[in-house]
């Protein structure tokens, strides 16, 4: 008795408003074939959101719909079964008494019995787990468990796919393979995919759009790079991994060129004038990592859109082929940070205590409207 005919290619629309218990407010849409990454600090409400979409808990009010089908509103609420989705819970939720293969087969009830085993094995192969169909969950390593859960969620041809940090326990090699697999699947199945992740890079790499949730509130949504470039507020900026956030004061406005000058420590920098600035205004600004440059500046051939800044290198941290550099700017409390390639750092002869210049791209300087 199937209550619904899984109508593929339907977008998922979510509006949730909950004040009691675990507070959560969010509203977004995820089209078929789109991957939406939910990011945000630990305890923000990401898992709670996914559980509500899955039908495992009921929001106080709001609406969840998939295409024309209403999954939840004040009047009705479909069961998880009726929603026909694939869900990889954060802690995997494997059936402890069933082996890996049987765990996957449990999601294949819609197939004739004879095909289930073959299908299950196929899915295990695709998550790189050929060798272990007979293993019980407690005999699997953390990453292996996670992949079984992934295979189980994918196996049932879901209408919507929900992934709660699906790669957190998986090693890098397998993870990259699974990225590809996921991207292909998303396109092939043409369904909405919602993925919780802590890894901003993962979000940027895989997601079409990103939703940022913190302390039960949806702070921003949009394309990953757009959110990074224009975070609504400081909190968002921090959660997106931006570290260069500073105070400044507006000291000049060039109305014709739509440029504004900011007093930054003992120096001045130019930025684009978003229109609402007033002289003497105290504000916070942020610059993404790619807006900060060391190279080519010694030549003095900087275009107008670059601000030159005198800095002192405070510390250098080598991370693989990148060097993370923290610099101090005169009169500014917090360090200005940047990453440069190891090559460049060597070429420019960087060392701690060295005085140098950095360039801040003025069109990448983003001013916050509100203080966080």
């Amino acid at each position, binding site marked *: 008795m199937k209550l619904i005919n899984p109508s593929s290619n339907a977008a998922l629309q979510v509006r949730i408003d909950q004040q009691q218990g675990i507070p959560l407010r969010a509203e977004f849409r995820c089209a078929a074939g789109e991957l939406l990454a939910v990011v945000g600090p630990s305890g923000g409400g990401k898992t709670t959101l996914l*559980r509500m979409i*899955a*039908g*495992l808990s009921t929001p106080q009010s709001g609406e969840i719909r998939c295409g024309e089908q209403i999954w939840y509103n004040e009047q009705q609420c479909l*069961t*998880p*079964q009726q929603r*026909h*989705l*694939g*869900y990889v*819970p954060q*802690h995997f*939720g*494997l*059936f*402890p*008494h*069933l082996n890996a293969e049987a765990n996957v087969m*449990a*999601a294949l*009830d*819609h197939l004739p019995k004879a095909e289930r085993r073959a299908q299950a094995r196929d899915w295990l192969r695709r998550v790189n787990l050929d060798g272990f169909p007979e293993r*019980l969950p*407690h005999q699997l390593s953390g990453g292996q468990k996670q992949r079984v*859960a992934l295979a*189980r*969620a994918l196996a*049932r041809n879901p209408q919507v796919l929900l992934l709660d940090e699906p790669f957190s326990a998986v090693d890098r090699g397998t993870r990259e393979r699974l990225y590809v697999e996921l991207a292909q699947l998303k396109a092939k199945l043409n369904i909405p995919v919602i993925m919780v992740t802590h890894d901003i890079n993962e979000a940027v790499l895989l997601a079409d759009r990103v939703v940022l949730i913190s302390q039960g509130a949806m702070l921003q949504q949009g394309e990953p790079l757009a959110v990074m470039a224009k975070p609504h507020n400081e909190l968002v900026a921090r959660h997106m991994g931006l570290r260069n956030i500073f105070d400044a004061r507006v000291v000049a406005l060039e109305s014709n060129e739509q440029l504004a000058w900011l007093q930054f420590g003992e120096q001045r920098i130019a930025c684009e004038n978003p229109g609402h600035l007033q002289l003497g205004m105290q504000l916070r600004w942020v610059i993404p990592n790619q807006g900060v440059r060391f190279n080519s500046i010694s030549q003095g051939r900087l275009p107008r859109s670059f601000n030159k800044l005198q800095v002192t290198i405070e510390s250098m941290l080598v991370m693989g082929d990148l060097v993370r550099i923290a610099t101090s700017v005169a009169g500014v409390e917090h360090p200005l940070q940047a990453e440069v390639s190891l090559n460049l750092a060597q070429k420019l002869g960087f060392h701690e205590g060295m005085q140098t210049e950095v360039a801040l791209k003025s069109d990448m300087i983003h001013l916050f409207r509100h203080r966080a």
Partner: protein
Amino acid sequence: MDWLSLWLSVKLAAVSVAILLPITLWLGRSLAYHQFYGKSWLEALIMVPLVLPPTVVGYYLLVGLGRESWIGALLEQYFDAQLVFHFSGLVIASIVINIPFAVQPIQRAFEAIPEEIRDAAACCGMSRWRILWRLELPLAWPGILTAIVLSFSHVLGEFGVVLMMGGAIEGETKTLSIAIYDSVQAFDFDGAGAMSLLLVLFAMVTLAITSAMSRRMLRRSA
């Protein structure tokens, strides 16, 4: 040696447990999953057959199921059947008496199944029935087994109720416990000893096999 009584006791235990199990599974599972007002009282009520002396339960069953009661009268009138002094009556009595033994461990076992697993199953699209069969029952199995073992053994050893409403009819209601008691009363201590030993041996073999089998089953799957 009273083989007929042994056979009767075993039959009674088997039949009673077979009927008891679905009832207590339903009851124990409901109590485990649902919270409602007065649940503590219901749980206490279920314990009542355990608190009353079996002889008293037996007496009230004798009265409640006898020809004078409406159940007894109905049965007699339409089916010409009688519950008291019959095997069927003993089955009913054993069930009533053993509900507490069976419900408690089953309830605990269902309570111990992590919510996470049931959630995952719902998201896998498994129907309630499949969740019950494929997940809940296997995971609750140790508790269910305890329920089976406790009630099976208890029926084998049940005495008071059978005494009160059985009538010690050979092949019908004279179970091994009654036979042993009769021997003791007749100062036939050797006979009583031999029958007790038989009962103990039979029970031990059955129970040992059950527990070994279920351990093997669990080891294979957990």
